[in-house]
């Protein structure tokens, strides 16, 4: 089996006169946790949008799990096993957690699916909230529901866009624990501003700066890189 899960070649995206991504190359191996950092507006979310099919790139190719997914619809990419979360938590707020999860399944009556749901919900400790409207839960609980909805689909790659954004420091610790256990279930790509998350989870870090890749390497090396400190970590953004 091919060891490369995600391969991005020379992806560029312009919004009018603004170049959000300028020829990004990136390779992520199966089981390797990749962290992406960079100041606000450096193109991190646009990058995820391009890979998940929400935004069409102006040029470049994306291949996932050995197949080209350039130009395909988000739902087809999702079916191929690439899932993502959003920077602002996004669940079906009107629906109960139970209904949210059922929506993510092909067949909610299937016994194997039900077992998988029970197992993952137990692990995430969200079972007691199953009959509440998802919109009425706390932010942390909504993040857990987001994870639950995706995990029941058995994704190969989960792209997390600021998974601890807006959480309290106690919740951040809990979430880091959850995410480190999540590594056993699927490959993770994580965008974060909280360096603690990157330090504890990532095997490899990519720094994005004004739509370009500034640096790439192991977290210890990147977080000590003078260029990264000068342009990002030393600023108020980090």
């Amino acid at each position: 089996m091919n060891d490369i899960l995600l391969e991005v070649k020379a992806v560029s995206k312009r919004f009018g006169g603004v170049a959000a991504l300028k020829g990004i190359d990136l390779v992520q191996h199966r089981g390797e946790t990749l962290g992406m950092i960079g100041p606000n507006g450096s193109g991190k979310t646009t990058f995820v949008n391009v890979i998940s099919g929400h935004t069409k790139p102006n040029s470049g190719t994306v291949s996932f799990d050995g197949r080209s997914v350039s130009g395909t619809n988000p739902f087809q990419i999702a079916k191929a096993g690439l899932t993502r979360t959003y920077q602002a938590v996004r669940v079906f707020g009107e629906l109960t957690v139970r209904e949210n999860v059922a929506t993510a399944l092909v067949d909610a009556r299937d016994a194997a699916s039900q077992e998988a749901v029970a197992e993952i919900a137990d692990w995430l400790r969200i079972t007691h909230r199953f009959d509440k409207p998802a919109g009425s839960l706390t932010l942390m609980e909504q993040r857990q529901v987001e994870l639950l909805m995706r995990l029941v689909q058995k994704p190969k790659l989960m792209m997390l866009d600021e998974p601890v954004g807006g959480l309290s420091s106690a919740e951040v610790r809990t979430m880091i624990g959850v995410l480190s256990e999540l590594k056993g279930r699927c490959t993770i790509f994580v965008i974060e501003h909280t360096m603690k998350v990157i330090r504890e989870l990532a095997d490899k870090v990519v720094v994005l700066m004004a739509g370009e890749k500034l640096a790439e390497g192991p977290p210890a090396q990147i977080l000590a890189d003078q260029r990264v400190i000068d342009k990002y970590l030393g600023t108020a953004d980090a």
Partner: protein
Amino acid sequence: MTPVTEKKDLSLLAKGHGLPLACFAVVAFATPFLLSGNRYFAFVAGVTMIHILWASGMNLLYGYTGLMPLMIAGLAGISAYTVVGLTASGWSFWLALPVGALAASISGIILGLPSLRLKGFYFTLCSLVIQTVVTLGFIYFSGLTNGDTGISQIPLPSMGGGQPLSGLAYDLVLSAAAVIGVIVLIVIVKSTLGRRLIAIREDDELAGMLGINVTGYKMIAFFIGSLFAGVGGALYAPYIGFISPRSFDVLISMNIWLMVAFGGRGTIWGPVIGAILLAPLSFLLQEYYTVKDILYGLLIIAVIVLMPAGIAGGFLRKKKESAPPLDVPATPRGAK
């Protein structure tokens, strides 16, 4: 980790509608017999049954898929003219009915295409234009529709080539159509299809990200919703005995929308109640023609302002905790 034990019911199946459905079926089939002494009241009840079917079709699109097409009457008209044309040229009504309904469904898919690009209000506006064009089409192609004059003296269909059905027998056919329509809607809503349509209503981008083919499911919703409209239109023509472009104009579409919105979109029984309350109203107010339109206008405003979730929605809100109106996303999108 310790498993949480306080709530172990992880079944993902929706709750049943058995009891209200049984009550509705009994009432629907009993009404024609109870009102058989008074042909006029029985007729009003029959028209109400057709409106229950239309409202249920509109409910699938508006209540469950989050699309608001104001062209249901136009689609019903396409079916009605098709069926009347076919029966006039010798077809059996019972063969013409599925053909007419299918014509409405295919038209619905084609006329629903703008919903793939236009969101919310903009699609509604577009559908309003489509409805107007369809009405003009009924007038323009007078060779097929007899234009503004309309087609009159449409006979009630016969069963097995004999005498036309009696009023009572056809009333029962209408009751059966309404009951079957509601059953089909319940089955859809409880199925995977229904869950996916609701997901599209709530957040179509998130639905797509979860692997749901949003385009495909919107088309399916239009096919089925238009099928309801088409069956209703086909049954309507011989029942009234007369159809004209005005029978299927924008006011009728608005009226069907009002039944769904007033009763409670996105619930099975709300639009049924809406149809039962509002369909007879136009007959009761027939003598006060000018007042009728004003009353409808006021009712539309009242529904939008005072009860955006309708009667059933207001009832459910009391049972459920903290459920904001359907139009408002529960989480602010742009918020960090």
